[in-house]
């Protein structure tokens, strides 16, 4: 190994002909400054340091992959899904902007349903154990995943959480994703369904601004309905916008605070396991 640049000098590892054809019509290139032509015996510069070494013949080959970059996440998500299906667990991935009331909805839901349903929760936040503590107080087992600087949960994190959470058969597993309407849309966790929460203090055009999330969810909970008299939120418009990106979407208008509409949500949950 060449200690300056890290390139190998051993037997079969030789000439890299890096005379790439650059077609700039519809391509964007991110060339690295280490690029250079290698001749059999030459001096060249790596990161400002000139040195010589020899390279013999090259054995280049092209590996055609056509591989989805999220394929590893998708594969792990399928494993999670199979694991949960095997235990007849209804797994719901709750996504929303920060502050829409996901945790409050979960608290109310647990308090109402824990006498009749087994419930477990995986909490995703960048920092703190606060949400898991709130869930714990409402009576359901909770695992907190702190993603650090991460902006979403991925299938690998759920896999590790499932190893720790002794999930019982026939239970409901709620995964509260990191508050973010962008990135979590791309990461399948292995959930049965995805539920997007929007609150009436947000703009009604959210479904148009974040179409990926609304396209990938099956149910939309419109929360904080108790505030409707005080805000300029047009519920019909929101539903119309969300249906325009996802015609099959279902909607339930709720207030976790007053309990309004929560029965419809519980009925929806019961229907999912029939």
């Amino acid at each position, binding site marked *: 190994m060449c200690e300056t640049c890290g390139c190998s000098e051993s037997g079969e*590892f030789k000439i890299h002909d890096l005379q790439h054809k650059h077609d700039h019509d519809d391509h964007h290139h991110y060339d690295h400054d280490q690029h250079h032509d290698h001749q059999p015996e030459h001096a060249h510069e790596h990161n400002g340091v000139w040195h010589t070494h020899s390279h013999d013949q090259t054995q280049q*080959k092209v590996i055609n992959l056509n591989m989805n970059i999220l394929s*590893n996440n998708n594969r792990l998500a399928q494993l999670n899904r199979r694991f949960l299906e095997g235990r007849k667990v209804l797994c719901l991935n709750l996504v929303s902007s920060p502050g829409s009331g996901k945790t409050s909805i979960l608290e109310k839901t647990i308090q109402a349903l824990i006498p009749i349903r087994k419930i477990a929760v995986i909490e995703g936040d960048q920092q703190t154990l606060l949400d898991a503590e709130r869930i714990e107080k409402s009576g359901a087992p909770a695992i907190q995943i702190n993603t650090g600087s991460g902006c979403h949960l991925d299938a690998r994190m759920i896999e590790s959480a499932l190893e720790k959470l*002794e999930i019982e058969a026939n239970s409901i597993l709620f995964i509260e994703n990191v508050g973010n309407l962008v990135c979590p849309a*791309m990461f399948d966790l292995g959930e049965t369904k995805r539920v997007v929460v929007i609150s009436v203090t947000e703009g009604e055009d959210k479904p148009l601004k974040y179409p990926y999330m609304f396209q990938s969810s099956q149910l939309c909970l419109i929360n904080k309905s108790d505030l409707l008299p005080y805000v300029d939120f047009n519920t019909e418009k929101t539903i119309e916008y969300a249906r325009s990106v996802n015609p099959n979407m279902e909607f339930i208008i709720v207030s976790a605070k007053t309990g309004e509409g929560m029965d419809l949500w519980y009925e929806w949950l019961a229907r999912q396991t029939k």
Partner: protein
Amino acid sequence: MSIHYQAISCREFAKFDFMHEFSLAIEVINLSQREAAKSNAREIQEITIEVGDLSGVEADAFGSALDLLVKDSILNHANVKIIRTPGKGICKACNLEFEMNHRMAACPQCRCFPSQINGGDEFRVVSLLVE
């Protein structure tokens, strides 16, 4: 009921994960490392990645993220080629095929939407040139 309650730190694999495109760049590096190992490659000279305009990935941000992260990985010396594919849609009402520059683009002929996406949602590693 017993309460299970613990925190899992995901920081070890979220070190650079402050932006969506960074986690995707990490996926690309991991995928490249796996595939290179499978074919006993010592180095990847070129990687071709296709990023569709409707994939939800910002090609420029993704390229910059990859540039920052490749150091000490098998892609350190690789030429990164990002092919952008334009979004294409087919109108569900009048069957017109048209270029979609975003997912919510309406059919230019009858103004119907949403249209069926017919290309441009790809996000994949096309090929690796290895030795």
